[in-house]
């Protein structure tokens, strides 16, 4: 099936059906699910979490993983608020600085993974610890925020505003998802990324610069995470650096895996990641609306991911058996 020039695979279709089924069931049990306020809030969260989930997908497709997402969101969020609230520079410049810092972090991660030959898990785990520590040191472990009476109407409208009830974070997410879909599925870089993630040796033998491709994936990931950090900082408006963004990397990985990215690399789609993000946020919402104790939040999420991946695995094996049977015949 094709949709707007992009192939829609069976996996994505299954995910879409699952989201619809869950949505309908929740709406039947609690009609508030479809209330404008609830939809708008859920849409905002989808936008915020989706932006950095897109980035995570690139790294996972390259065959790596990025664990420092949550800490980057805390550190860059603190830096952004400090630059803007302290009137160090205009907020536009602060945005550029923060996104550039994000890209630099990606560059460093990519360098350590490719040139130094370290494992992505180790590199980004260290990033997780280091950035969190720096964020706390930067603010003396105090909560960072805007001083009383500070107002940046344009910045606030741009990042936390709504357009006919549609939060700008979601608008930004949709725009970025569109761009990233083109980059991943229609650009030369995207093709190389899939090749490197699938079989690095064959990619190298085909003349692909595997180092550059992998580093670019990390730069995209951390750059998008920086964008998300700005939106999330402006949404929460205050940041306590020890807890801000905790576990966010896991949301990103979960969305990517739900969306069909293989942790072995070389597989995944932007549409899948978008749907994965939507499903995760609908699940969060479901826990609230159905009166399930919010302490069970993670348990529900974990169970759904586990079941989803399990079912998908079974289907994939069956498909493979059919293909094999056909190629024998």
């Amino acid at each position: 099936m094709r949709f707007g020039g992009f192939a829609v695979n069976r996996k994505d279709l299954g995910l879409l059906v699952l989201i619809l089924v869950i949505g309908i069931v929740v709406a039947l049990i609690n009609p508030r699910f479809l209330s404008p306020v609830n939809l708008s809030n859920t849409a905002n969260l989808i936008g915020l979490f989706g932006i950095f989930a897109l980035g995570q997908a690139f790294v996972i497709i390259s065959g790596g993983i990025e664990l420092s997402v949550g800490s980057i969101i805390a550190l860059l969020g603190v830096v952004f608020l400090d630059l803007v609230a302290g009137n160090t520079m205009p907020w536009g410049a602060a945005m550029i600085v923060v996104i550039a810092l994000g890209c630099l972090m990606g560059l460093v991660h990519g360098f350590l993974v490719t040139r130094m030959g370290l494992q992505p898990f180790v590199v980004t785990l260290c990033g997780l610890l280091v950035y969190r520590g720096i964020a706390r040191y930067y603010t003396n472990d105090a909560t960072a925020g805007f001083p009383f009476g500070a107002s940046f109407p344009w910045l606030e409208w741009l990042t936390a505003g709504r357009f006919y009830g549609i939060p700008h974070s979601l608008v930004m997410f949709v725009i970025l998802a569109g761009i990233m879909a083109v980059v991943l599925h229609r650009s030369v870089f995207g093709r190389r990324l899939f090749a490197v993630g699938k079989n690095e040796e064959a990619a190298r033998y085909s003349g692909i610069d595997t180092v550059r491709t992998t580093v670019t994936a990390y730069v995209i990931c951390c750059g998008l995470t920086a964008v998300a950090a700005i939106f999330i900082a402006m949404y929460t408006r205050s940041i306590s650096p020890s807890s801000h963004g905790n576990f966010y990397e896991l949301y990103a990985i979960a969305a990517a895996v739900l969306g069909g990215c293989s942790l072995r690399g070389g597989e995944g789609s932007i549409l899948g990641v978008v749907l994965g993000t939507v499903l995760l946020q609908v699940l969060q919402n479901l826990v609230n609306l159905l009166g399930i104790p919010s302490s069970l939040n993670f348990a529900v999420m974990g169970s759904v991911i586990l079941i989803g991946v399990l079912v998908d695995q079974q289907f994939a094996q069956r498909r493979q058996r059919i293909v094999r049977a056909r190629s024998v015949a």
Partner: protein
Amino acid sequence: MMQWRPQNPSIAETLFSLSRVTKHYPGVTALRDVDLSVSAGEVVGLIGENGAGKSTLMNILGGVTVPSSGTIHLNGEERPNLTVPDAIKGGIAFVHQELNLFENLSVAANIMIGREPLVGGPLRLVDRKRLRELAEPLLVQLGADFGTDTLVAELTLAQRQLVEIAKALSLNARILILDEPTSSLTVTETDRLLRVVARLKANGVGVIFISHRLGEVKRCADRVIVLRDGRVVAELGHEMIEQEIMIRHMIGRELKMLYRPPAEPVGDKMLELVGLRTAYRPDRSISLDVRQGEILGLAGLVGSGRTELARTVFGIEPPLAGEIRVGGETVAINKPAAAIALGLYLVPEDRKRSGLLLDFSVAKNVSLANLSAVVSRGLFDAAAETRLAWKWKDRLAIRCSDTKVPAASLSGGNQQKVVLAKWLSMTPRVLIFDEPTRGIDVGAKHEIYTLMRSLADSGTAILMISSDMEEVIGVSDCIAVMHEGAISGTLTRDCFSEENILSLAVGRVLN
């Protein structure tokens, strides 16, 4: 006490015998009516060219492969369905070319792996003291110069081999099969290994010594069996074990005439290697020319450094010294992209690992090295990609229902054509083939040969690495032979013969 001394060391006892063993595979007969026996205290040399059937024979001995017909006797009993555990229990042990050791464990732990002495009852702890006590006498018997606590990672290849042999002996091996044991050893290490073989022999172990190094076979074997095309063509008694005699029996297979001469006389030097040194054998240097319109065959035994040479020229590994010239110009090739930019391409030996992305479609594989051809304004043009793939599917007669099917679903020959299409969609000046027809059926083989010749005729210089005698002699315009990391000789067509190639490959000087 020597734990591995056979219970009844009588010299004439036959430990193992195969009679009239035949093995058919679809389309080929790997072994035909092979007889082989090993007695206690006997060293049997097993020789034959690449593809003569040695591996199949060894797999049957080890219980990995069941023969199509024939009988197997192990320790006097007939074993119609020999399995791997049966073979191990029966005292058959292998020391393979690629050693199967755990580098992160000690020598003693490796020797006793899976059979560790335990203490602590239900806790099942490893009794380290006893472990050492069990391993120590084996190492002493083999004259090892390292201790039981040494990590295998710290040992040289020759020392690791001794660990493997010790492991075999700890399993009470009565028949030890050494597969190319000396191919990576220095002269001193080889001498020591041959002394170990002599010691084992004296202790009543039967040894099968498989080697391309005929000099060593001569030194240690009591009897030599020569395999050719899946048959035993000669059994040489002690007085007959001479290099000339062995070579004469190894060759002499009837070769079909495949050769088609170039359409025009060959042109200028297209690829020149001058004093090239590779990381594989830094002590050897390689000089070689391939001319425009020529197919240069590169023969040699497995491990002679041919693949490593190809990898270096293609930029996978940097050369240590020397020059590469393409079209007369000295070039620096530090990565495959640099080689590709020069029109120098490699069809690698391991198609499935390095040549193709098996999960990718045929179309994506064809365009992989030439993405700019299917991109317009920075974005993929799916239609252009499909057109490109169909063009090459038609030109090379790649048999697949559609170019969207994954490369994995194609047969070996068609997969190889996909690898070729990847390069031919650009303009090749030098094309290196590493074992171009390995695992490919006869029909597809000939198609590939025809393609190679027409490529050469259109001005490409072709370097073809091949271990298949028929292929090397039948396709090449000129043959260079490698031995231990260097070119040991070059043959023009009038000097092509299996005898000459094999002699150069084992390092003998031609008269």
